Structure formats: structure tokens, C-alpha cells
């Protein structure tokens, strides 16, 4: 085997001290809002801009889980200027809806919850279980929301339109038409909302990629705009921070429920990941999902939202970011005149005081899913910028990639995994290290777990080689450049780092990673990757119910085959039983014989079974 010079001696390909750094200009307005500006001219004509609210689901509590994410939705609904054609009328609608919804909530929390606890209804929030009073309130609320949106008289209009379609008499037709016209005009006149005006203003001005995301620790709003439209960004963003109204506060939850169905409930493992996450975190605010528990999502009140807003969406808790083609001296006065109008908060955001409790025993979750069998092992570790976080990051890299240990042992060596990976995730107040793998062939999650255990033991028993360590450091050094290339991506990284501690981590991280030693890696492996400090999730494939319905005489044998192949085999057996052409079967058998050697291991049993069935059918036909 040829040894390349570079692999014989572990030499760094790039010294991290030389690594390029983000040159940012930062300043703080009188009201406490901070700004971070990164001018870059290699990508002309565009600017990426955004602002960070240092609040996420970790700042919530039972009863309002998901409200940070819900705020993210609310922020696109406009102000007294944007999103309405009649702010006064709109405020009246909102007040009316607030009173109705308060009453619905009170009744649900008292009567419906009591019925639910007694086992009389299956879901206290399902309108199908409404009492007559709740039905009436809900109808009123809907009527108010419809009127606000210009959809008043919906039922009446539908009825008239149906009538119109059936009506033959010309005079009567004319009469109905006039009625429809009158109702539609009235509905339009009572509308106070201009739907999605916020988006329209930006779209017309060439804004693109406008969006926001919410995580455990932060909420970030961003857009890319043409470089001459910076003042529009300042106008729009300072307006929504200065004068947000909670428009469509109640109807928007339907959208969030759909988002929950999409992200959590309709994906193969979404609801299981959610349970694992909430089991893993014992005491901290990371134990509820960012999108919130459904009963909380139904329960938010306007008062609660206003309180949350006053605490977390004030300038002393916000940071603005501008990255791209601009001149700082030109945009600073614009920032000052627009964002200085935000009123400072009355009180500072309360500290997060609940620390993650140290686990004393291993936790386990065994799930049956419609997905590949797999295992995930997750250990409690350390938060962002903790001194051990760098060794844990390097440790993950030692395990990952095609030259990483997991590939070498589990994918290539024993061939029990189809993929495997490790990740060190550091959040603001706590962290987790995880290793996961999906099975290959007939391997089981238990085998994967044992293989991962062996890798962990090796990390604890032996120092990693100088070669392995240097390779990972070289990659980290090169990635320092790669991650700075795209304006939007750079801005998101700055915002995440700033939310969790300081944006300067972007510049400081490279040297800290480079300082990690093999001893550090062994020490963190011994300290954190212990049995009592971990939770294990195993996933096995749920037996396919739809495909086992038509059991036949061969069922016992087919049941031994890999579950995902059973349906296909059953189908082939059926078709084979109807096949009358012996030559066809003979040809197929000959083809199978020629392929016998190259059949992949996982398919061998099925292949043999089919060959046997075909030979039997051929014999049957030949006897005739």
C-alpha cells in the first residue's frame, strides 16, 4: 500500500490562526437594540437583513408552550398601518373576538375539561363535543372573523347561488342576482383586513426569501432585498416591532395545527421524536416541543400574548443584522431614525432559572414505526461555549464521514448499518451528544446499539491517533471559510451564535477547536458518554397491516421473509397460480438460476422461496 507523505506525518493544511474572520461593526441604540453590520461587496446589489428576538420555547412554561413560535406567525399579520384598511374597525373586531374566545376558553377549561376527566368526551377542544352554549359562542366568533375578513353572509350566499343555478324564471333570477350583489357589497364594506399586505409590500419591492424560524433558544426574522431598498426594510421591520397588533390571533392557530400535522404527525417518526425529546430533558424548558402541545396551542389568550410581547419583543432583547452590499455610514442613520422609535421594555426578560437535572438512571423508549429500524443514543452534555463543547465537537467529527469510525466499523466492516452519524448539539442552557444508526439487511437495533457501545468504549479506552485528530482539524479549518461564503447563511450563523452567547464565537471557535487534544477527547468520552447519563430510543418496523390481509396457504413461510417484501411476494405467488404458460416459467427460472450468485443477501430468502414456488407450478403444468 502506497503511503502519501501527508498521511505519514500529521501536518495541518491550514493554520487556524490565519483563518479569515468576520469583520463586523456593532453598535447599540439608546433604547438598547443592538445592530451587527457586515458589509461585503463580492455579491453585489443585494443585502440580507434580519432581526433576532432572544426568546424561544425554553422561555415558555406549561400552559403557553409553543407561544414563541405562534408569535413568529403573528408577526406577519401587520400593524395599524399594514394589513388593514380600517384600523379602528379592525380593533373593534379584535376586541369582540377576544371577549368571545375568553368565554370559550373559560367554559372549555372548566366544563369540557371536567367532562374529559370523567371520560364523557374524548377531546375537550373538539368542536364536535361542544355544549349548546359553546356552539353558540363558536358560531359568533366565526361570524366575527368572517365579517372582518370580508366573508360575511357565507352560508346565505352559498344558498342563494345554489338557488340561482336552479332558477329558470328570468324575473326571479334577476331578484336573486340583486340579493347576491347586495350581500357581497355589504360584506366587502365591513372588511377591515388587507390580507398578507406585509408580504405584498416586500414582494413588489423585490424582497425575496422572506421568512422566520423559531427554535428552543431564539426567534429570527429575515429577508433578502435589493441593495437600494434598505430603508424599506427599516420601515417595515420597525413598524411591526413598534405597532404590532395580534390580528387573526384565533384563526391563525388552524394554520399552526396544520403545520403540526405536517411536521410532527404525518412524518414517519415525528411523534416519536417528540416523545423522545420530552423524555430526555428532565427538568429544563427543552422538554416541550417548539411548536407546543396542542392543548396549549388552543389556550393562548391575548393577555398572555401581550405579556410575552412586553417581556421579550422589546429593543433590549432584540438584535438587528445586515450582511451584504452596503456602506455602513449610509445605513446607520437610517437604522437610528427608524429603530430608535421602539419603546424600551418596562422590565428585563426574566432569567431562565431551572437547570437541567442530572439523570441518575438510563432511560429507554421502544417504538414501532413505519420507518427503517434504527437506534438513537443520546447523552446529556454541556451548553454552547462550554469548555468541553469543543472536544465533543471534534469527537463527533472523528466518528462521522466516510473516513470516520462509524462508517469503517458499522457500514463497511460488519455491514450492520445503512447509515450512521454522531452529533454534538449545544443549546443555550444545556447540551446533548447523540449517535444514531439505521439497520441494514437483517441487523437489529440491538446489534447497532452494541456496536455503538463498542465505539464509545474504544474512545474511552484509547487515545485517538494524531492522524485522525489532524484530519478533523484540517476539515474544521477549511470549513471556517466555506461557511462564510453565502450572505444569508452567514447572517443566520451570526444570529444563532449571538442568541446563545455572542456572535464573536464565529471568529473564536476555530482556535478553540484547534487546541483540542487526544486526551481532551478521551476525558469528555469518559465524563459524558456514560450509561446513567443517557437515553436510548429503538425503532422497529411496524408490521404492515394492509399487506397481510389476504393470507394464503403460504403465509407461514412468507411471514418469515423481510416484512417489506411480503406483499410483493404474495402478489407474485397469486399471479404464478394463474400462469398457464409453462415456457414462460421455464424461461424465468433459467434467468433466476443465472442470477443466483448475485442476489443481494437481504433478498436471498425471498429469491429461494420464489424459485421453489415456480418449480412447483412448472411441475403442475407439465403434469397436465
Amino acid at each position: 500500500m502506497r503511503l502519501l507523505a501527508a498521511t505519514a506525518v500529521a501536518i495541518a493544511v491550514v493554520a487556524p490562526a490565519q483563518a479569515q474572520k468576520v469583520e463586523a461593526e456593532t453598535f447599540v441604540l439608546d433604547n438598547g437594540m443592538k445592530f451587527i453590520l457586515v458589509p461585503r461587496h463580492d455579491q453585489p446589489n443585494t443585502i440580507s437583513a434580519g432581526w433576532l428576538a432572544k426568546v424561544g420555547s425554553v422561555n415558555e412554561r406549561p400552559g403557553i408552550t409553543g407561544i414563541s413560535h405562534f408569535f413568529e406567525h403573528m408577526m406577519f399579520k401587520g400593524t395599524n398601518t399594514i394589513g388593514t384598511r380600517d384600523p379602528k374597525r379592525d380593533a373593534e373586531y379584535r376586541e369582540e373576538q377576544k371577549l368571545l374566545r375568553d368565554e370559550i376558553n373559560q367554559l372549555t377549561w372548566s366544563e369540557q375539561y371536567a367532562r374529559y376527566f370523567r371520560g364523557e368526551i374524548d377531546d375537550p377542544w373538539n368542536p364536535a363535543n361542544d355544549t349548546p352554549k359553546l356552539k353558540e359562542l363558536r358560531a359568533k366568533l366565526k361570524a366575527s372573523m368572517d365579517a372582518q375578513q370580508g366573508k360575511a353572509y357565507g352560508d346565505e350566499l352559498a344558498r342563494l347561488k345554489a338557488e340561482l343555478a336552479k332558477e329558470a324564471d328570468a324575473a326571479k333570477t334577476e331578484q336573486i342576482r340583486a340579493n347576491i350583489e347586495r350581500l357581497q357589497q355589504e360584506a366587502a364594506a365591513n372588511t377591515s383586513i388587507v390580507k398578507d399586505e406585509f408580504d405584498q409590500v416586500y414582494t413588489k419591492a423585490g424582497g425575496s426569501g422572506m421568512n422566520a424560524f423559531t427554535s428552543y433558544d431564539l426567534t429570527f426574522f429575515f429577508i433578502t432585498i435589493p441593495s437600494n431598498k434598505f430603508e424599506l426594510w427599516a420601515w417595515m421591520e420597525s413598524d411591526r416591532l413598534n405597532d404590532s397588533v395580534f390580528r387573526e390571533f384565533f384563526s391563525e392557530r388552524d394554520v399552526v395545527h396544520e403545520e403540526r400535522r405536517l411536521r410532527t404527525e404525518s412524518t414517519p417518526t415525528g411523534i416519536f421524536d417528540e416523545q423522545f425529546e420530552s423524555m430526555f430533558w428532565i427538568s429544563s424548558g427543552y422538554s416541550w416541543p417548539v411548536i407546543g402541545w396542542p392543548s396549549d396551542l388552543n389556550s393562548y389568550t391575548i393577555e398572555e400574548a401581550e405579556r410575552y410581547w412586553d417581556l421579550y419583543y422589546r429593543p433590549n432583547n432584540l438584535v438587528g443584522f445586515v450582511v451584504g452590499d452596503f456602506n455602513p455610514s449610509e445605513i446607520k442613520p437610517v437604522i437610528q431614525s427608524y429603530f430608535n422609535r421602539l419603546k424600551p421594555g418596562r422590565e428585563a426578560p426574566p432569567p431562565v432559572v431551572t437547570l437541567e437535572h442530572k439523570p441518575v438512571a438510563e432511560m429507554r423508549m421502544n417504538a414501532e414505526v413505519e420507518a427503517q429500524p434504527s437506534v438513537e443514543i443520546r447523552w446529556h452534555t454541556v451548553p454552547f461555549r462550554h469548555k468541553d463543547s469543543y472536544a465533543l465537537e471534534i469527537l463527533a467529527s472523528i466518528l462521522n464521514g466516510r473516513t470516520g469510525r462509524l462508517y469503517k466499523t458499522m457500514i463497511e466492516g460488519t455491514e450492520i448499518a445503512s447509515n450512521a452519524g454522531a452529533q454534538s448539539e449545544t443549546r443555550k442552557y444545556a447540551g446533548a451528544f447523540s449517535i444514531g444508526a439505521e439497520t441494514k439487511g437483517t441487523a437489529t437495533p440491538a446489534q447497532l446499539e452494541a456496536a455503538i457501545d463498542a465505539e464509545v468504549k474504544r474512545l474511552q479506552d484509547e487515545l485517538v491517533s494524531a492522524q485522525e485528530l489532524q484530519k478533523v482539524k484540517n476539515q474544521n479549518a477549511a470549513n471556517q471559510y466555506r461557511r462564510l461564503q453565502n450572505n444569508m447563511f452567514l447572517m443566520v450563523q451570526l444570529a444563532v451564535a449571538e442568541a446563545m452567547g455572542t456572535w464573536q464565537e464565529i471568529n473564536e471557535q476555530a482556535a478553540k477547536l484547534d487546541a483540542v487534544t487526544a486526551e481532551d477527547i478521551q476525558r469528555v468520552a469518559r465524563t459524558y458518554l456514560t450509561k446513567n447519563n443517557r437515553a436510548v430510543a429503538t425503532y422497529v418496523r411496524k408490521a404492515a397491516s394492509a399487506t397481510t390481509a389476504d393470507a394464503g396457504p403460504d403465509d407461514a413461510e412468507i411471514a418469515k421473509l423481510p416484512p417489506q417484501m411480503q406483499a410483493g411476494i404474495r402478489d407474485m405467488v397469486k399471479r404464478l397460480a394463474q400462469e398457464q404458460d409453462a415456457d414462460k416459467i421455464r424461461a424465468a427460472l433459467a434467468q433466476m438460476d443465472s442470477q443466483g450468485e448475485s442476489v443481494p443477501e437481504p433478498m436471498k430468502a425471498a429469491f429461494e422461496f420464489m424459485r421453489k414456488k415456480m418449480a412447483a407450478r412448472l411441475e403442475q403444468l407439465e403434469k397436465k
Partner: protein
Amino acid sequence: MTRTATILSTLLVGIGATSAIADIPPRPENLVFAPLTFEPPKASDYRFVLKDGTPVYMAPSAEFPLVTISFTFKGGSYLDDAATTGLTGMMASLMRSGGTATLKPAELDEQLDFLATRISVAASDTSVSASMNCLKSNLDESFRLFMDIVRNPGFDQARLDVLKGEAVEGMKQRNDNADGILGREWANLLYGEDHFESRDITAMSLQEITPERMRAQHARIFHPANLIVSVSGDFDKAQMIARLENAFAGWTKGEPIPDPPAPTATMKPGVYYVQKDIPQGKVVIGMRSIKRDDPDFFPMLVLNDILGGGGFTSRIMQSVRSNEGLAYSANSRFDPNVWYPGDFRAGFQSKSPTVALAIKLIDDEFNRIRREPVSSEELATAKASFVETFPQNFSSKDSMLRLFVSDEWTKRPDGYWTTFREKINSVSPEDIQRVAQKYLDPSQMAILVVGDWTPIYEGNERASMKNFFDGNATQIPLRDPMTLVPIKNPAK
């Protein structure tokens, strides 16, 4: 060692409270912006030709000490026949992971990872690309390894077995995700099961994929007459040309590759569904549309933006999400194809009882845009959006070069970018209504639903699936994930 020149200069400047609220105009429309003049870069300014005729696009930039070299070849999974489906894609993967004629796979991987050089080889439906991103400091060494992969791939059998194992596990998961089922069956409906857009690797075709067949496919695709090169990052142009000339020495040209074949099947309008027990129905509604270079391309582009392509500002998003809260995302897409007419489709996901209502709302929007001319305000917004975001197509050197390469091998007509904004601005309300009537006829569309059919069919008091195609619906059986042969489901 520190370099003062590259050290950040962080200024902490407290700005005085000279609040200027009086200057803030009451509405954003009152703002006045400096004009932004932008002329699109010309491909010819970046195009060079090697001695053997290979085109090379180069755009240097010294911002970061990295170099990216990309090779784009004509070809792709359309070259696979039914029996060997997956061959080209797997050949591309194995080129990266299977070593070279002289380097064992693990040796090659170790060298690349140690250099922190990223190399990828990937095949799409209609092109194959190989690209490399490395530190400027080891460009020569990285490029040597890259050319070794491109010209002398090893196609190692053991690594092929690993890839095949991964492919088998991938196949097993085909029915787990409803979106995967939706995409697969939509392609089947649009292009027919035998067209390459619909074909996918199976347990049977996997057996036909061998190192020998890969070598033949590699020889057919990877040669200079079939190649366009692009280079960005921190490099010298003259040296780069010399480096490429040197590396291409003795690389012989092969036969030209044919264009991708057009599908022969036509889509049958109607309602189709796949039963899957999930709380949401996932839906696509649409039909075949036009080719990319069709004269109706610009009106269709603007139409799509107004109807459902323009995010929250578009009609479908407003109707389905903003007004009714029925879906998290609801949109339309216009995917013209270079070689044959692509499709126009709307899609969304909603809880089972409101699937039919959301389809009805989208249907109403199709009918409305056919019946009434779009408002001048909507049209102005859509046009402004295209014109104002136009410079973004060229914002990074990489994205600019990708456009030039793609335009060249798909033979995009000259002047497309220089006249883009004029053509957008000349689209009239009448144009949009005309193309809507021509290409968006709901009676000619297919509606495909993946979800729990009984509650979806029932709908709610406002709409049910009986509203469409007289309530007729065709069940598409789930396919066996390994063979893609339909599974005979118990009647539902």
C-alpha cells in the same frame, strides 16, 4: 501567528439619540429609492475554449482561499433502460466512493479528507456533474486526485456492495413518507410508467448494475466532447487554462449523446388516490404544460406567480391558508421542461375532512384566472417582483457560472437574460387570460391524493370529493417498495 490584516475590527459605537421620527413617512409607498441600474453579465465575457474545443467558464474572486472546479456532462438517468434503471446514478456515486485505477477507495478517501477537499459526482435525470472544492493551498494535489476520479474511476466491487446495500435500505423506506409516494405517482400519471422521469431503481434492476456496465456508461458520458467546465474562487486564469490543458492531454472524444426522449404517454384527467393512514391528505392537481423555450413561457411565468407561485401574495396561498387556515403551505408550480412539455401543478396538505374543500378553492382559482383578466395591481406586483429580484440570479459567481453552463448545454436562445425584464414587462392581462384558458383547464387535470381516503372522500359540509369528476376516483395501489409492482390492496 496572527495576521493583523485579517483580524476583525469590532467597533462599539454608541449612537446619540438624535431621534428623527418626524422623517418617517406614513406608508412604505411614500419612500423614494435611489435607482439600481443593473446589466446582466454576458456569458461570452467569462467563456474560454481549450485547444480540444472544451468550453471553460471562469470567474475568479480572491475573497476566500478556496477554488471550485465543476465539470458538467450531458447524460443522466435517461440513458438507463428499464432493465438497468439506476445505473447512471449509482455509477456517479461509485466514482466518488470506489477509488481509482491506482488508489484503493480507503486510500483515496483518507487523502481527500486529510486535505479537507470535497469532491462530489452526481447524476440527475438529464446531466452528470463532477465537482471539487479545495483550499487554494493544495489546488494542484486536489485537482490531480479529482482528474484521477474523473478519468480513471476504480469502480471497486466491495464499495459497490456497500452502495447496493444502502440502495436496498433506501427502497425499503419508499412507502414510509407520503410525499415520496405523491411524487412517484404524480410522475407516473404525467409521463407514464415507462418514461425515465417515472422510473426508479428496483431490486431487479439493482442486480443488473455491475462494474462492467458502469465502465461502459462512464466511457460514454465522461469525455471532452460532452463536457463544459466552470471554475470559481481564488485562482489565476492563465494558470488554470494551462492546468486544464495539461490534465486533458490524451483524453479522447467520444460520440455525442442524444437528447432526453419525450414521453409517449398522455395523462388521463380524473381523481386518483393512494390509501395511507395519516392525519393529513397530501394533494397535487395539475397537467402537462409547455416547453421552456415556448413563446408562452413568459405569460405562464407571471401567471404562476399571481396564481400560486408568489408565496403569501399569491391567490392560492391567500385562499387556502390565509382566508381558511386549511393548510400550512399551498402553492402552484410551473415546471417547463427543456426537452418536452413539463407540468403546471398546484399542491397542498390538509387534514382529511378539508382536503376536498381546499381542492375546490384551488379549482375556483383556476376558473377565476381563466374567466377574468388579472387586476393591474396584481400584475404590477408580480412584474416588479421578477424585475427587482433579477440581479439575484447573478449574485454569486457560482450561481452565475451555473446559469452560463446550463444555458450552453440546454441551448437557451441568445439574449434571454438581456431581454428578460422587457419580456416580463410586456406581459398583458390578456396574455395571462389567454394562456390560462389554453393550459389550465380543470377538466383536463388530474387530482392526486395520498391519505386516508374515506374521511377525505366524505369531506365536510362545504365540499366533498363528489364535487370532482362526478365523484369518480381511481385507487392507485401502493407499490411494493422493492419491486415497485402494485400491491393488490383489500377493497376500501
